[in-house]
């Protein structure tokens, strides 16, 4: 006997019962998004390492690590901006310290393009090149926010997929 489903809708606007069939579609969307990010060089194999570390004892490991990365990166970006806005910028060493942190954390999560911009930025600091540093900072912000937006999209899809995979619908009862 088919039981009537309550009219419950998800944040995507889809009826909940439809999500049961949507889990595979969403998994494919996640794979497609990741493939794009790898193809663009935004992420490298280190991100796969993070995914491999995720297991039953740490089911949200990737999300937790990237959340910390976002939080720390935005502090670093603010500090870099403040340092470069100083009228009499002379201490490029402080900028270099922040960049080393940014490079390290970006390498650790597989944020390849962000890391590469940090390398260019660091080269500009070694030359005490303020204009070069300002250009690099702008590029760094662009790359970082592109990565952040794409990873947010990835985690949203993952959340929906996880929800969809748990849905039971009448045909399976």
């Amino acid at each position, binding site marked *: 006997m088919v039981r009537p489903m309550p009219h419950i809708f998800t944040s995507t606007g889809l009826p909940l019962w439809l999500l049961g069939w949507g889990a595979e579609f969403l998994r494919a969307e996640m794979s497609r998004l990741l493939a794009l990010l790898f193809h663009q060089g935004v992420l490298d194999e280190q991100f796969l390492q993070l995914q491999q570390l995720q*297991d039953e004892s740490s089911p949200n490991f990737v999300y937790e690590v990237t959340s910390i990365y976002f939080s720390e990166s935005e502090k670093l970006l603010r500090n870099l901006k403040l340092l470069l806005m100083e009228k009499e910028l002379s201490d490029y060493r402080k900028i270099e310290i922040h960049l080393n942190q940014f490079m390290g954390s970006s390498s650790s999560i597989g944020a390849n393009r962000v890391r590469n911009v940090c390398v260019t930025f660091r080269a500009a600091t070694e030359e005490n090149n303020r204009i070069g540093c300002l250009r690099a900072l702008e590029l760094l912000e662009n790359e970082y926010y592109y990565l952040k937006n794409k990873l947010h999209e990835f985690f949203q899809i993952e959340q929906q997929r996880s929800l969809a995979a748990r849905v039971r619908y009448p045909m399976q009862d």
Partner: protein
Amino acid sequence: MGIDAGMWKLAGSSSSSSTCRRFHASSLGGSSGEVKALVVDDSRINQMLHHKLLDNLGVENLVVCNGKEAVDIHVSGKQFDLILMDIDMPVMNGIEATRKLRDMGIRSVITGISSHTLDHVKQEFIAAGIDEYHEKPLTSAKLLSILNKIKHKD
């Protein structure tokens, strides 16, 4: 050796650099179960990453936030087979910590892990007494090769 295997424990949730997290991981009884490691890094991301890598390989491990804590924990009598040492840390950096540990007679395998690609920094780290150097990030494959060397050394 002096390390108590215990339950997972996470101290504090602040992301400030002054908050140190200590992770105690019980040995999972894997092939690396007899090796004990110390992770020395001020970055939360790398602390989590290296702790998880070691944990998954069944390596009992402790995490500290800077070189001074690494030295202090040895002064307290704890010993480790492997120390994963970052370079840039507040209070005491990895180069100074490595020098102090070697001066204390610590013979543990110290692996320098850093994102520095500057040769003179690497050379200084090596001169301080590390056994080997790896660029961040540390991967499972790199860690396994380090652990295999330790096992064969024993």
